[in-house]
């Protein structure tokens, strides 16, 4: 996936979890959980959605690498 595709996927998955979230207002290095008011269940669902949408298996030990938009882009477009 390229970076734009990753961002589109994040937007799509988030719309199902936290439709009120405004992704445009989140900085690249901000912790998404704090910036978008996601609790731990929301975050798990986000990971599951990203993994399913991208076909990339995400190991649980890697979850902390996906706390930020930058991290998600790096992980999924690598």
């Amino acid at each position, binding site marked *: 996936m390229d970076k734009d595709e990753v961002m589109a996927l994040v937007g799509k998955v988030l*719309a*199902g979890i*936290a*439709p*009120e979230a405004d992704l445009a207002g989140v900085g690249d290095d901000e*912790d998404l*959980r*704090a910036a978008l*008011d*996601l*609790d*731990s*269940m*929301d975050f*798990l*669902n986000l990971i599951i959605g990203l993994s399913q949408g991208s076909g990339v298996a995400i190991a*649980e*030990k890697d*979850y*902390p690498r996906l*706390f930020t938009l930058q991290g998600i882009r790096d992980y999924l477009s690598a």
Partner: protein
Amino acid sequence: MPQQPDHALIHKPASLRPDPNLADYVQTAARFNWDDAAKLLDGLPGGAGLNIAYEAVDRHLAHGRGDRIALRWLGKSGARRELSYADLAQASNRFANALHDLGVQPGEGVFLLLGRLPELYVALLGALKARCVVTPLFSAFGPEPIATRAEMGDARVLVTTPELYQRKVQGLRQRLSGLRQVIVVGEAPAGDASLHGWDALLAAASPDYTIAPTDPESVSLLHFTSGTTGKPKGAMHVHAAVLAHAVTGRYALDLHDDDVYWCTADPGWVTGTSYGVIAPLVCGVSNVVVEAEFDAQSWYRVLAEERVTVWYTAPTAIRMMMKLGAEALQGFELSALRFMASVGEPLNPEAVLWGQQAFGLPFHDNWWQTETGGIMIANYAAMDIKPGSMGKPLPGITAAIVQRDSSGLRLIDTPDTDGELALKTPWPSMMRGYLHEDERYRKCFVDGWYLTGDLARRDADGYYWFVGRADDVIKSSGHLIGPFEVESALLEHPAVAEAGVIGIPDPMAGEVVKAFVALKPGFAPDEALRSELLGHARKRLGAAVAPKQIEFRNNLPKTRSGKIMRRLLKARELGLPEGDLSTLESDEK
């Protein structure tokens, strides 16, 4: 779900280092009385009563322990700050003086809405010194739960951060007319004269403060908890509760003077106040505070690097760690860790055993609620553990399994029989009332027993086992969520005619919130509306309270009086027997 004691007993260790505070449960429980236990406390100098903040902070200075680290704060971005008991005494004195300088009176409500920052701890203790009534709120609450609680509790002062203020409170100022002073951490943003900046306010306040005489029965903390119907309940606690915090800190958490202790709960919930602030400080230990949210690897790092000795956490986190596997612990040096406890919801036997496998120590489950103010039933360091059981009543606490009937209470003595868990009144940290709701408060007590609303059973060895809730309250990630509060928020949306909210089982969170919604004529039950409702609920309630799932129905099952039958929604969702349907008037479609 009934849990049978079908797992092997975990025998108490042959020897424990240091010697456990509660070495012989049976003997201590037989001899215990609260008046003797009061020796654990100092009382205000000159016999001027009892104040939680004095017991938690100032008295340690008088005992020559002022240099010991009280708070070891680990910030999100790697910052680290340590406050000794002497530092904490001075800072909380400054805050108490600042409240005085702002004209805040004893008995007035001070609300705290902020993450786990040092200021939260200073404000809580300072406000207790000033004899104000403190309410810590969970910072993930949305505006609606904040407003409801601030209105009910008559908040005069709010301590928050500039970001939380701007996102959640600013829009409520008109509604919260009683809120006179807002203090934001750091500096007040330019251009808003209604805010006080923490730094300037405290710098101008004196570091010397003498706590005025404090009646042990005066209200200290107001904690909100959720019920099935109506608004949240404001459970009022008094300064005298600190005795229960001292005793449970010693007995249930086995705290010793030189422990490094970490409670992972947020002070916005009662565990994070009673056991994340008060109990460890009263016991004089070093209290680790971690600002960041859960992440297994960073938690292991905290345990290892801070050399945590006693750890108090929650089932949801433990299950997430289990999922990650014990391998994730490799490379972390955890030899300092000697006691682990869990609270929030029943800890499944597998998780207790996983503790042994991964950490070489079992998790000690315990049980209590907002209303009890402190741990009531626990697994102790020097007592055999039956995995899945909440343990035995604290010395000084009498528990029973009861059945309510028309003539009052019937105590059930037959082992392994389900009934309601009841506690004999009084005890020091028992709530003294629900704010503005005497009737609701009185209903909790029958024949000198407090009825907990939890169903449980006691086995022949005296161990208690949780069975379920007697009401519709939802328990998600260890937090109680009132279905009524969620339904009310959904009903505010113009498309919603009816809403019924239940908890459905979830392997991680215990339960998650699910809403069933019937729409008004003219609205189509489509994906766009579903996500609009989801967003609407999350914005009003915050992620911790809002539903995770929404399902549309043409009609919700109701009684003759129009009450939505949550019980039936739940039975159908889970494929359980539907039970008595005699009151059903209008069925689900």
